[in-house]
């Protein structure tokens, strides 16, 4: 609350200062102000896709130029005013992003960054080859009446942009984007449609670029391919976000103001060396202070990101009825059944013709030595891998369904090695799963609070996962999976490396889930960890089921003993 008030006051003060300069300042001041506000909008836009969503782009200037041309053409040929041309340009850029994003977002890392760079260059070449855009000589439009007018509008747009990004950072989409940035696969397993989230982020950031381009062309009344797709705009935008703090709301604003002022100063004093100095500054920041100024403030304890949708204060917590309805289907009905699952990697048959059934309210243990194919079997069951055979979830054949869709339907899984989201808090980690799909906000908050309390993690709700001891990290992962309110839960060696106390906590959480009707399939190396919970066990060796029955029967099976101990083990069962 307090942080929101401070941020609000900052925004109002900045906007008032901007409006004051725009109305009362000379033309020179107004132009400088216009540039700063324009760069703030561009930096906020770049930060959405590259900072919050984690897809670094070196072609964001493409959306700026595309928006500028869209606005110029609309003003010339449709004879619309700037206030119509700007939203049109935003829409045009967002539409372009929608089309391109469908293809480009399948790439990642350097491939995405350079692919976007290439697209911006293609747009530039196109703009200088077409006659409608005026070719290489460019085109003119009716400019703003005075620099003060355009500066005023730009300041208001920038304030609006800050508000939008602030809202985004507090929203479900923002949460999903940060989770996706941290670990795409874990986000999918938490029920996040990561591709759609990224596509939305790209469209939004393109719209920011488009508005910036439209107001830019309206401000100077002239546009040519070289200035519309100017690489220096890209450099400055990237530098601003880096300097201020990538992935934050205020970083691009602070960086935008700071770098614009430095850029303007350098331009006045060292016009020819300006680019060299800005480039060197980029290197310096990348090497020495990658988190920018906000990371520096964070270190000093002046600032810290507020978790999204914090838990209700302890007093108002009432032990409400369990939200886990619907899952309480008939006792011991088949929740998940697999027939003939198999997959080959080259000449290795990792999983071979495996049948299994998971029943509501029961635990099925899958045990087997190292390399038996247990984790691969899980990946087949939850569609992370595609092999042969069929899996039915309830009444439904899940063939071809995406992992995030399965997670939303109630097929949850954990991973053998912890896959938590390093930049999210404990609270947010569980909330990602609890708020997946269309779960209402209050329900999601309720589920998350309850789960954290049950697992004893509520005291740590505002901490980062990497500050927790390993056992609590695994517990957190289980809590995240349970937040999907699963009908079936696949646990992949969830209890490895836990203390006895932690195992008890996990057992309690699993018992609660099972009493609510959840079916659990647990992979374990060491049977004693789950022997009390499991009602049935199946043993996997070299990809095949070699024994099934109750856990105690299975342990006495000679084939199982030879698989674990070697064929000539004569020790028998103790």
């Amino acid at each position: 609350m307090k942080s929101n008030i401070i941020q609000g006051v900052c925004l109002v003060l900045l906007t008032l200062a901007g409006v004051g300069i725009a109305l009362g300042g000379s033309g020179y001041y107004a132009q400088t102000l216009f540039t700063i506000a324009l760069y703030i909008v561009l930096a906020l836009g770049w930060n959405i896709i590259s900072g919050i969503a984690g897809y670094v782009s070196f072609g964001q200037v493409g959306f700026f130029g595309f928006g500028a041309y869209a606005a110029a053409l609309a003003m010339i040929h449709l004879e619309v005013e700037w206030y119509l041309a700007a939203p049109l340009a935003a829409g045009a850029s967002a539409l372009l992003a929608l089309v391109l994003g469908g293809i480009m977002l399948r790439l990642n890392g350097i491939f995405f960054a350079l692919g976007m760079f290439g697209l911006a260059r293609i747009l530039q070449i196109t703009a200088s080859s077409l006659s409608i855009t005026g070719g290489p000589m460019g085109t003119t439009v009716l400019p703003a009446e005075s620099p003060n007018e355009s500066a005023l509008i730009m300041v208001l747009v920038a304030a609006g942009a800050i508000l939008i990004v602030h809202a985004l950072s507090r929203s479900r989409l923002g949460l999903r984007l940060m989770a996706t940035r941290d670990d795409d696969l874990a986000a999918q397993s938490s029920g996040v449609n990561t591709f759609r989230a990224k596509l939305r982020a790209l469209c939004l950031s393109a719209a920011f670029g488009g508005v910036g381009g439209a107001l830019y062309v309206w401000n100077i009344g002239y546009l040519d391919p070289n200035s519309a797709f100017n690489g220096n705009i890209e450099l400055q935008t990237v530098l601003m976000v880096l300097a201020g703090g990538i992935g934050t709301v205020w970083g691009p604003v602070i960086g935008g103001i700071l770098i614009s002022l430095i850029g303007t100063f350098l331009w006045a004093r060292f016009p020819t060396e300006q680019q060299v100095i800005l480039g060197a500054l980029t290197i310096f920041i990348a090497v020495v202070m990658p988190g920018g100024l906000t990371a520096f403030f964070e270190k000093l304890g002046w600032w810290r990101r507020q978790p999204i949708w914090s838990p209700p204060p302890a007093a108002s917590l009432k032990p409400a009825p369990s939200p886990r309805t619907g899952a309480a289907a008939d006792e011991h009905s088949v929740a998940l059944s697999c027939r003939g699952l198999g997959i080959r990697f080259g000449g290795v048959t990792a999983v071979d013709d495996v049948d299994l059934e998971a029943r509501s309210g029961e635990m099925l243990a899958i045990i087997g030595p190292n390399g038996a194919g247990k984790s691969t079997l899980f990946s087949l069951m939850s569609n992370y891998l595609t092999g042969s055979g069929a899996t039915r979830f309830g009444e439904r054949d899940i063939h071809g369904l995406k992992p995030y869709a399965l997670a939303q339907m109630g097929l949850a899984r954990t991973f053998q090695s912890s896959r938590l989201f390093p930049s999210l808090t404990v609270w947010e980690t569980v909330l990602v799963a609890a708020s997946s799909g269309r779960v209402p906000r209050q329900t999601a908050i309720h589920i998350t609070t309850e789960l954290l309390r049950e697992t004893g993690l509520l005291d740590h709700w505002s901490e980062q996962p990497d500050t927790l001891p390993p056992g609590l990290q695994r517990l957190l992962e289980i809590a995240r999976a349970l937040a999907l309110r699963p009908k079936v839960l696949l646990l992949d060696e969830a209890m490895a490396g836990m203390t006895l106390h932690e195992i008890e906590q996990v057992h309690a959480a699993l018992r609660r889930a099972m009493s609510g009707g959840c079916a659990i399939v647990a992979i374990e190396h060491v049977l004693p960890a789950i022997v009390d919970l499991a009602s049935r066990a199946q043993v996997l060796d070299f990809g095949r089921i070699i024994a099934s029955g109750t856990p105690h029967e299975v342990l006495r099976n000679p084939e199982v003993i030879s698989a674990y101990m070697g064929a000539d083990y004569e020790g028998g069962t103790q």
Partner: protein
Amino acid sequence: MWITIINLLLLGLLWGGVYLLMATGLNLIYGVMKVVNLAHGDMIIVGGLLAFTLFSAHGISPIIAFPLAAALLFVIGVVVQFVILERIPVKGSLGELRTLLATFGLSYVIANTSFLIWGSQFQSLPFLQGSVQLGRIALPQALVAASVLAFCAALVLHLWLTYTMLGKSVRATAQSGLGAACCGLNSRLIRVITFGVGAALAGAAGSLVITLIPFQTTASGELTIQAFTIIALGGLGNYMGALIAAEILGIVEVFTQYYLGSNPASAAIYVIFIAVLIFRPQGLFGKVGRV
């Protein structure tokens, strides 16, 4: 008709050799450090402009400028790796982002420093302007010379990597940095040398290319993309793949230029680049190239 096509094919193959040298440095650096040097194109241009100055001011032939440019860029590369990139941990997503941004900034520093030295106009180096006649087929002498030199340089690099102890150490570090370090190799030194050699190859390529096409300090982005397209198409870190990719690119570019003109030819490289990313992200011969 057929003569034209054969002529264009030969031109394309010769250009392919030049493109290969332009891409080899990037490939080497990527192979060892998994870093894409976004300043690669700028390094090529610096090498070319150095050859230009040596030729126009002192009358030194590009054949001599070729090793000099390589030496200068080797020093620059060593300094860059030692002062900048060694300080950024490559692990994790933020590490990748930081190296990208650092070389992105470096690209601006180099481009604009050379802008301060050489100005913004196109510079060209007229050298060996005759043509080699093979029956009715005419090939520019400069292109033939540049291509032969480029192939030689690529061959020397290949021999260095395959048969010398240092070259083997570089390859070991490329395949597993940790494993190489466990065998007692000084991986930091190897990274510094690798970056130096990669930059030297860029400089050497530049001193050849400027005899073929005029250079401008701001045109580096296209060269970087061109080099990256070749190594992405060939499969990142795959030298044989890069050779074939460079030849394909050379032929495609010569034909587009001849039949469609220069604007489509400069767009062609980006179109191929994006098509490669979409349809063959693992390259023609490599594993999936995910950095």
